[in-house]
């Protein structure tokens, strides 16, 4: 599946947390075709520095308005430059890229940090007959904005924080067994730091619920051309995170 190179127009670029921003971009081709779990590869400057694009998962898309939504954490020069963009500016966006989540009737979504973005995407785009609950893992009460993002979605939100200042103290895995035990989840979807996802996948496996994970990796092209983001798959397979993923069945990449 090839993406589109679109010169998108920034509609809104707002700071929502100390180092987290949310951007809406008018990119109608992507907005029409994007699926939950796919990503957009953003060229932050029309120059050779920074040179490479930045892969960012869709936090949402609106085919009618022709917009895509990106949630991004400022981690370096590329994302720092993105914060300077204002409504009306042009941003070169390549997408939709990668394989999406395969949604199921009753999902447990587990997001950690900026990995919450694709969970928000699933929660905002539930199809008829689909339900979901979400566990959000973040540092402390200063990051409750993550939970606020789910206010307009129909999903029930559970929170864990590193220090227990909001929700349950600990990682999302702390409350997974209880939630899985009292619900008939047909799948677990997760995105966040690798140790968290490995923990989530292990709990899902224990309860025999299929789990899909969205991997993050340094990418070169994002289009399957350079093998910069290759990873090991089960049975001696080789995967490209950008093209075969970023979403994989957990057992294919954690073993």
């Amino acid at each position, binding site marked *: *599946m090839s993406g589109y190179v679109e010169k998108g127009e920034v509609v809104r670029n707002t700071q929502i947390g100390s180092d987290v921003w949310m951007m809406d971009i008018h990119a109608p081709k992507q907005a029409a075709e994007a699926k939950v779990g796919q990503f957009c590869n953003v060229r932050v400057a029309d120059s050779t520095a920074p*040179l490479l694009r930045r892969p960012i998962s869709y936090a949402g898309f609106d085919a009618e308005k022709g917009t895509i939504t990106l949630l991004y954490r400022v981690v370096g020069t590329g994302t720092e430059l993105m914060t300077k963009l204002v409504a009306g500016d042009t941003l070169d966006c390549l997408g939709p890229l990668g394989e999406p989540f395969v949604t199921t009737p009753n999902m447990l979504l587990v997001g950690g940090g900026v990995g919450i973005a694709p969970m928000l995407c699933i929660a905002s785009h539930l199809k008829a007959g689909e339900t979901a609950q979400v566990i959000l893992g973040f540092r402390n009460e200063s990051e409750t904005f993550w939970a606020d993002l789910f206010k307009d979605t129909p999903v029930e939100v559970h929170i864990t924080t590193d220090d227990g200042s909001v929700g349950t103290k600990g990682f999302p895995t702390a409350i997974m067994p209880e939630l899985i035990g009292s619900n008939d989840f047909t799948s677990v979807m997760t995105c966040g730091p690798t140790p968290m996802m490995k923990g989530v996948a292990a709990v899902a496996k224990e309860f025999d619920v299929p789990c899909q994970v969205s991997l993050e990796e340094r990418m*070169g092209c994002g289009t*399957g*051309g350079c*093998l910069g983001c290759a*990873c090991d798959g089960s049975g001696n397979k080789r995967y490209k995170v950008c093209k075969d993923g970023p979403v994989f069945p957990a057992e294919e990449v954690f073993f």
Partner: protein
Amino acid sequence: MSERDLNNTVTPNPKLAIDYCGIKMKNPIIAASGTFGNGPEYAGYLDLSNEVGAISVKGLTPKGRHGNPGPRIAETPSGVLNCIGLENPGAEHFVEYILPDLKKYDVPLLANVSAGSVAEFAWMAETLSVDGIAGIEVNVSCPNVECEGMAFGVDPKVVEDVTKAVRKVTNKPVIVKLSPNVTDIVEIAKAVEAGGGDGVSLINTLLGMAIDIHRRKPLLGNIYGGLSGPAVKPVALRMVHQVYKAVNIPIIGLGGIMSGTDAIEFMMAGASAVQVGTATMVDPEAIRHIGRQMAGYVEQYNLESINDIVGAVHQ
């Protein structure tokens, strides 16, 4: 395989057509090895039959390789470091399972081959001298494979031996891809010519590194990696210029070409064709834009053919 396929949607500009060592290309722009997958990955972005001059396929080795541990990519000022490590499924797998898919596109394919010995290089050339392959690009210069590619590429005698061995077993054009990580690239190019090579492509990547100061560790999993992108262009251009003066076999120039202007610079320095790699990583449609810009130049100066500018700065 791409769902969208732009095959045969574009009419090529005849003024950009070239003949490189008998390989007829619709334009001088070759997709560089290792940046274009196997080719079909880009069928949704480019008309592979009409917008791409040729494709140098992802580097092949006798046996399949998993490549190096990550991170394999690091960004540097106007450049990219990579240490992929020649991940590929092996030459025979390529011929059996990947090549058939590529044949539906009317674009010449260069088989980019690496190996661990002179005899293995010959075996590779023989294995890949099959229908559907237009030429053999002998990679004696991959910086990411210890004691293999690079060791070959830095010694003129060994380069000559490899070229001779490959020449002997194939009737396809033999193009040797040169490393810039040498004292004198001209000596290496001369060795290719002496060994019966039909052409040279230069440059492969420049060995470099980057460090994560917070972790106090190299950014790349393999510590060192090959630098490509605009940062290396002036070095590559100088090397093409030097090699053009010293040999009579035609040159494929590459190293940081991002625009039509860059490509034209390489041709004026002496390249008969160019390769585009890092630009595709930034923009999967880069080859189209570069081709259009080159066509614009031909138009602007009322040239009969893009071939007219090859080596122009030497006149």
